């Protein structure tokens, strides 16, 4: 009986949270447009969320691109197709690794910070304080941060892919001696702007929305204690990563799976 009770209670808790999460998302969406009346808030948050994530994105992108080139070369060279290295590197990055890895790094770098910040604001009554000053924390605190992640994610993914291609170029052309002209021209011929680049961008937009939503909701819904905030921060990273990987599969199946 106790096991059954526990099951029921956790299911109820789960659905309650799910409901709160969606209401929170709706409230945020409603508050979004008015934020453009005060673009300074959006700029600040885009800086804190996006610009400050640049270093980790650039460094990781570089290494991922270099590894892709090494691995791709080893396989391609067996078929005498090492000229296609540029295509392999660019396609993997633009379609998959750019959006996905950027989103995973984002969850660790910016998402966790957002959750901890909002959670602590809640724990120290700053959010209640705002409410009592007739300032809606959703519009003043949450919405600008949501804009920040929404705007940053596609750009971070694009930077990741671009730097990754450069890394692939250094290793492929510079180190392994792939023909430079072939590397670039094949890439230009085979990477389709609409099918590959745009689909990657769409993915990263979806990931930006999801990562921002999860991070902000976890903070806003955190139990207002040190332990509660620390748990919420962990949940942000775990849930965002799972959501990104799961959504990536669905989106890939929809986009590329004829």
């Amino acid at each position, binding site marked *: 009986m106790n096991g059954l009770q526990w099951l029921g209670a956790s299911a109820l808790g789960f659905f309650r949270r799910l409901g709160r999460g969606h209401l929170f998302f709706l409230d945020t969406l409603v508050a979004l447009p008015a934020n453009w009346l005060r673009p300074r808030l959006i700029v600040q948050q885009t800086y804190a969320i996006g610009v400050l994530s640049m270093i980790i994105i650039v460094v990781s992108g570089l290494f991922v691109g270099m590894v892709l080139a090494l691995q791709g070369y080893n396989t391609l060279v067996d078929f005498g197709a090492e000229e296609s290295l540029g295509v392999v590197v660019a396609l993997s990055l633009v379609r998959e690794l750019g959006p996905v890895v950027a989103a995973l790094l984002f969850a660790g770098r910016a998402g966790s910070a957002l959750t901890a910040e909002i959670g602590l604001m809640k724990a*120290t009554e700053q959010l209640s304080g705002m409410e009592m000053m007739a300032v809606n924390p959703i519009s003043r605190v949450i919405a600008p941060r949501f804009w920040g992640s929404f705007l940053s994610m596609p750009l971070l993914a694009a930077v990741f892919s671009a730097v990754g291609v450069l890394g692939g170029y250094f290793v492929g052309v510079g180190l392994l001696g792939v023909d430079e002209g072939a590397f670039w021209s094949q890439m230009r011929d085979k990477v389709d702007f609409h099918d590959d680049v745009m689909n990657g961008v769409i993915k990263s937009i979806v990931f930006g929305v999801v990562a921002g939503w999860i991070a902000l909701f976890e903070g806003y819904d955190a139990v207002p204690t040190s332990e509660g905030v620390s748990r919420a921060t962990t949940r942000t990273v775990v849930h965002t990563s799972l959501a990104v990987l799961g959504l990536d599969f669905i989106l890939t199946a929809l986009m590329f799976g004829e």
Partner: protein
Amino acid sequence: MSFEPATADTPLVEIRGLRFLRGSRPIFDGIDMDIEAGKVTAIMGPSGTGKTTLLKLIGGQLRPDAGTIRVDGQDVHRISRKALYELRRRMGMMFQSGALLTDLTVFENVAFPLREHTDLPESMIRALVLMKLQAVGLRGANGLMPSELSGGMARRVAMARAIALDPMMIMYDEPFTGQDPISMGVLVQLIRKLNKAMGLTSIVVSHDVAETASISDYIYVISQGKVVEHGSPQNLGRSDSPWVRQFMDGLADGPVPFHFPAPTLAEDLLGPA
């Protein structure tokens, strides 16, 4: 800020049959209160009786399980969100913890409600903020961050912020805690002065019986979810109700329990049989 002071016979805040539970534990169990406009009303009671909770109920941050709270004629828990925010603009609240925004300086904290709700030019905001900070004696601290303030200072900044918009009513949650005798004296006078000069209505929650009684027009004593006594400070001073005597005189023995509800000590120590 414009407002019409409520007439003497309709109180600014009217609480009827208020019931509020935390889990299954009643915090309030049928409370009626009238808070007159233009007066200083004190709410006293032992720690943990729900004074902070009462202020949050009045501010519409918590919902009662039964009963109504009307502020300026509007039922706080029935009106739309927009109307509630309109109403809150005219209520200032000084949180027990201060609740300052930790990423803004003292100056920006006090300026915050002005920037959010008005289009005043920067020079005007500066003048207003410095005036409010001067009133609480912290003009010199305007460049500090909240983390650089002591608890008592943070509370005074919170007070300056609560009066920034010149509200019709201010709720002070333990304004005197952590103040030295000098700033305590200044704050006591300030609350009284603001009340007079700006025609404010003030609700003061405090344990400092003598100081609070000296500036309040009316006192409610709450304990265990009920109003146990109310009246003017003079009348309470003369009251022979054991509740009031114990609280006003700070006696350990009496009807007000010092302990949070619990099984007897012996039962707890011996553990479940």
